[in-house]
């Protein structure tokens, strides 16, 4: 096996559902359906394309940290074409923050073995976008992040990073951590064959003991950050709505002038 790819994915509450906090101020996962974070689908897709373009044998392991339901995210990635999965599941992980998650993922990635780690640019729930950088720091390998284009050849990863002020062409030797944006290319839909095949693919289950991580390094108690308060934003008071019958622009201009925007 010459190219070992690990794709980190997250099971997130559906953004179109009614998302809430639980009493302990962690994300309430019981009252809303979960799914594979949309931005991680792009990571799975790019891993598949890298594998398809590779001259070597390549193997894709999809990795997640999360409760039992997170298995759904792994199955989705397997049905898209990933080869096997690793699920880190442990009751003590409840409430783990980004620093803690990066610790768990880094240990699991090292245990699995890797040449390339592929992540989405951010999760669609926390939206921090820091995990790929945290992983690169913990693993001590280059970060090649926020890529809209990526390719792997001759032991190197190259890609394009579109920033606010410039577009950069990046290059790093493997092993490396990559993250891809939603501009990297539409993710494929699982085929019926893929869905059937996924049922037979191996899913390895790991807990904190398997990774030599103490429970007090993770979870709500071990978190590096603490949410002290979460309040639902008050609904906006109903605004003024007018129908344009020739005067719409004038009326709107009056409003903007009243608010001192013009």
């Amino acid at each position, binding site marked *: 096996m010459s190219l070992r790819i690990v794709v980190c994915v997250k099971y997130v509450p559906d953004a179109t559902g009614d998302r809430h906090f639980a009493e302990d101020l962690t994300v309430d996962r019981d009252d809303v359906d979960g799914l594979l974070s949309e931005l991680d689908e792009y990571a799975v897709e790019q891993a598949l394309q890298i594998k398809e373009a590779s001259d070597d044998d390549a193997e894709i392991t999809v990795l997640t940290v999360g409760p039992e339901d997170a298995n759904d995210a792994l199955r989705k990635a397997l049905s898209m074409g990933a080869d096997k999965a690793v699920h880190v599941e442990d009751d003590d992980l409840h409430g783990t923050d980004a620093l803690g998650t990066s610790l768990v993922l880094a240990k699991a990635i090292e245990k699995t073995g890797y040449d390339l780690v592929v992540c989405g640019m951010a999760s669609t729930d926390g939206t921090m976008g*820091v995990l*790929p950088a945290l992983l690169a720091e913990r693993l001590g390998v280059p*970060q090649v992040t926020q890529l809209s284009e990526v390719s792997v050849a001759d032991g190197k990863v190259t890609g394009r990073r579109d920033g606010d002020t410039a577009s*950069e062409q990046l290059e790093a030797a493997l092993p490396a951590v990559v993250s891809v944006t*939603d501009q990297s290319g539409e993710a494929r839909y699982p085929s019926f064959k893929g869905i059937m095949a996924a049922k037979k693919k191996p899913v390895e289950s790991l807990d904190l003991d398997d990774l030599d991580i103490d429970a007090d390094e993770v979870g709500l108690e071990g978190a*590096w950050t603490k949410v002290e308060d979460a309040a639902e934003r008050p609904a906006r008071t109903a605004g003024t709505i007018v129908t344009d019958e020739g005067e719409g622009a004038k009326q709107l201009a009056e409003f*903007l002038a009243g608010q001192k*925007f013009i």
Partner: protein
Amino acid sequence: MAEVLVYVDHVDGAVRKPTLELLTLARRIGEPVAVHLGAGADTAAPVLAEHGAVKVLTADAPEFAEYLVAPKVDALQAAYDAVSPAAVLLPSSAEGKEIGARLAVRIGSGIITDAVDLEAGDEGPVATQSVFAASFTTKSRVSKGTPVITVKPNSAAPEAAPAAGTVEQLAVTIAESSKGTKIVSRTPRESTGRPELTEAAIVVSGGRGVNGAENFPVIEALADSLGAAVGASRAAVDAGWYPHTNQVGQTGKSVSPQLYIAAGISGAIQHRAGMQTSKTIVAINKDSEAPIFDLVDYGVVGDLFDVVPALTEEVKSRKG
């Protein structure tokens, strides 16, 4: 008073507005010490001093431009070691978050990203965040180590507060391991002359209703009359009508301007996630049932091709 490190975002010494906002917020929790990496420190220092920096730590090395992120982490860590600050603040740009994240691992600290407000608390700075597509507001703090916090643009109005701004050279050793990701080439984005999307006080966005790249000048003309940035919904970007760098939404940029004008945008949850914290929201849409109207302070049900050009003329004539 405790010192607070502020990472300076700049282009060759031209300090970008979010950094001035950071300095303003930093003063609430301590004495700001600015960290300026790369060329242009002479240009930047007076501006940083004017906004409250008691000290400006500077370092320049070719590695900052030749390799991605990691050399800057080495430099910020050197500043951290030199100062022992009460907190480290960075702008919530892609790079700011990545530098902050890596520093947090190195110094064993927690990180909070995308703060929209910051205040002093009994147990350290308390950051306000807007989460779940802005449907919740949370208050959080870092509970281990020195707080590393990234702050979104437009979270505070920059205030002048002249301070010494003493410039000091920072000794930085860049590790071999920080030279892993080479920047092979860099193509600067062509300037449109309009304000930066995430920093703009006013944003005018177009969506599916704009119905083609050839019609976006209608949106641009209104933006220009107001001195605004131009945004686009995912639908408009995916259709190839406007560049992805201008996309407002969950997978694009999150904006929080004083005024947000949405033209021909229905207001799908993914778009709302990126603009819902705007102070004043205006929508123009043919469909009176569009969900965007649930958010607006002022809405016009009408054809954007009638309303937007007429509004542009109104703005121009009122501004004289």
